[in-house]
């Protein structure tokens, strides 16, 4: 098998009758997904995730570019011969077939004998926790169970790559968590290469080895979850990742100035100059307590507590600094020491500041 190479894949949608004007363009995309890797494409609705996935699957003809698996050029191979598998948002099980027959469908298409394919199907069903459900019909299963069957169906034929298009977005939250768990476990077990599409950052963070962030047809940044979170390459990625405290400003003369807000201004080590965005992650802001260790060049803000909200084990505090509301993560213990209206000191280590262009 080998790695999946997406080489300058490109696609332009046009209105049916006006060839000239393109309504949506997927810009040339260059990406390598390693064998056995779990790779997620993360991006808002309409950014072209499904389009890219379908190009990889061969369900859409690409305008340009190539798809390789290891040393095999698959660009002109029709989808039914690529040995990829795909799981869609809706389970898309065939309602007139039993669960077993659904799972065995791919094998049947490969002309695997009936006994063998049903055995394999049952086996795979057991893997996704649905042993014994084989003779039911899809409508007799819950949404989560249906997605499990879809997963089993995709995996049973030993695909080179498993493509998943927001497979869990139609499920409710607790089911979704369960399914993530299952998927992760299965992926580790079968070591299948996964290209996973989602618009849910939690999901992408939880599941992926690497993540590609997309926006409006372009691939903005590729990296590990922590890198993306702590070192986003631009404000768009940052805001899509849900980072708080993205402050527009500029650096000049070794100092950062916020444009819209007063009170946010400090000297920085950065040598760059010009307009930029400052990203202050809520976790890097520390309340001034007695025993705090600060780097020597730590930056200090003074602010007033505006809100305090319990949030699974820690508190989110909104602290008014100048006229900007800083979002700040506070531990339970610390939260007990402050109250709305208090004036507090906040510190950030200079190394935890992150500046991005645009």
């Amino acid at each position, binding site marked *: 098998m080998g790695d999946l190479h997406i080489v300058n894949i490109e696609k332009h949608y046009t209105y049916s009758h006006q060839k000239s004007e393109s309504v949506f363009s997927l810009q040339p995309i260059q990406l390598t997904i390693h064998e056995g890797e779990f790779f997620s494409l993360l991006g808002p609705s309409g950014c072209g995730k499904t389009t890219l996935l379908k190009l990889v*699957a061969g369900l859409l003809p690409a305008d340009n570019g190539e798809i390789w698996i290891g040393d095999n050029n698959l660009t002109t191979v029709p989808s039914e*011969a690529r040995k990829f598998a*795909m799981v869609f948002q809706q389970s898309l099980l065939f*309602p007139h*077939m039993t669960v077993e027959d659904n799972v065995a469908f791919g094998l049947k*298409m*490969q002309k695997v004998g009936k006994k063998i394919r049903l055995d394999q199907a049952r086996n795979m069903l057991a893997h996704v926790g649905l042993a014994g459900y084989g003779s039911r019909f899809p*409508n007799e299963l819950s949404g989560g169970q249906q997605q499990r069957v879809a997963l089993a*169906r995709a995996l049973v034929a030993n695909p080179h790559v498993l493509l998943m298009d927001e497979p869990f977005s139609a499920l409710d939250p607790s089911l979704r968590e369960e399914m993530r768990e299952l998927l992760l476990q299965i992926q580790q077990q079968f070591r299948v290469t996964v290209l996973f599409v989602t618009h849910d950052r939690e999901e992408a963070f939880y599941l992926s080895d690497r993540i590609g962030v997309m926006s409006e047809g372009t691939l903005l940044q590729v990296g590990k979850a922590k890198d993306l979170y702590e070192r986003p390459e631009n404000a768009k990625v940052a805001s899509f990742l849900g980072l708080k405290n993205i402050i527009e400003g500029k650096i000049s003369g070794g100092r950062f100035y916020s444009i819209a807000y007063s009170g946010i201004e400090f000297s920085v080590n950065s040598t760059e100059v010009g307009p930029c965005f400052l990203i202050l992650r809520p976790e890097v802001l520390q309340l001034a307590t007695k025993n705090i260790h600060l780097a020597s060049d730590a930056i200090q803000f003074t602010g007033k507590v505006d809100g305090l909200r319990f949030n699974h084990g820690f508190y989110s505090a909104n602290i008014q600094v100048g006229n900007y509301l800083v979002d700040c993560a506070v531990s339970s213990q610390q939260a007990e020491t402050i109250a709305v209206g208090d004036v507090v000191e906040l510190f950030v280590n200079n190394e935890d500041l992150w500046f991005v262009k645009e």
Partner: protein
Amino acid sequence: MWQKNKPYLLLLPAISVIVLLFFGGLFDGLLKSFGYFPAIGETRFTLTAYTALLRSSEFWESLELTLRVAMLSSLLAAILGAGIAISLFMLNKSANSGGTQIWHRLFQLPLTIPHLVGGYIIVLLFMQSGFISRIFANLGMIDAITEFPVLVNDSFGWGIILTYAWKEAPFVSLLIYPVLSRIHRSWRDVARVFGASNWNFIREIVLPVILPAWTIATFIVFVFTFSAFEVPFLIGVTYPTVLPVYSYQLYTSGTLADRPEALAVNIVLAVLTVLLGLVVYYFSKRWNVLKGWD
């Protein structure tokens, strides 16, 4: 009390209308078929009408014709109907939806045309000297009228069969189409990803999916043509004739003495259609048209 009986009260008007007008009529007919006919001074119950019926070869030939006509017309309608539905479905996929809406409407045109008119259209089309025969002649396919087969007013019943095939095909497609349109667009993609070719797709997905609805639609057409009067009356032959027309002929024979036999034919017809109806019902329940959908 009101709460408890409310649904029954809501049902009462409709039920009583049907019971009075419909079952009353059936019952009335049943009595007369047993010879209870005060209007001609008969108040005894006998089975004469039925025994006479079962002994007459006319009845049996009529039954045979009726079954044949119903069978062939439902089969033809089924094939035509599926053809229409599938081509509409394919069109829907490729064309813009506004246009297909109109197509949809047009294909349903035969549905909105009264059966009488439908029958007459078939007469004009398929008589030996009809439109089709003229077209064939102009294409040089036939030289004389007699070379065109007799398809109208023939003792086999082709005219009736053609009429129902034409009239009911859109009905069949109307029943199939919703099922067909539930074939998710992405299923084609799913099937392809898992290695299915076009033919595989049709064989494994499309056909099995429409089969139950298709069968039931065919059955319904069968039951309907089995008991229809107007078209066979118009374009059938006098002998042998389908059961409803046979009954009508007896009914209007000019003597009240034939009435019990006419009504006996009716009762036989009703019993047969109810049995057929039960078969349809049984299958539609068991073999749920939309099995696995919801």
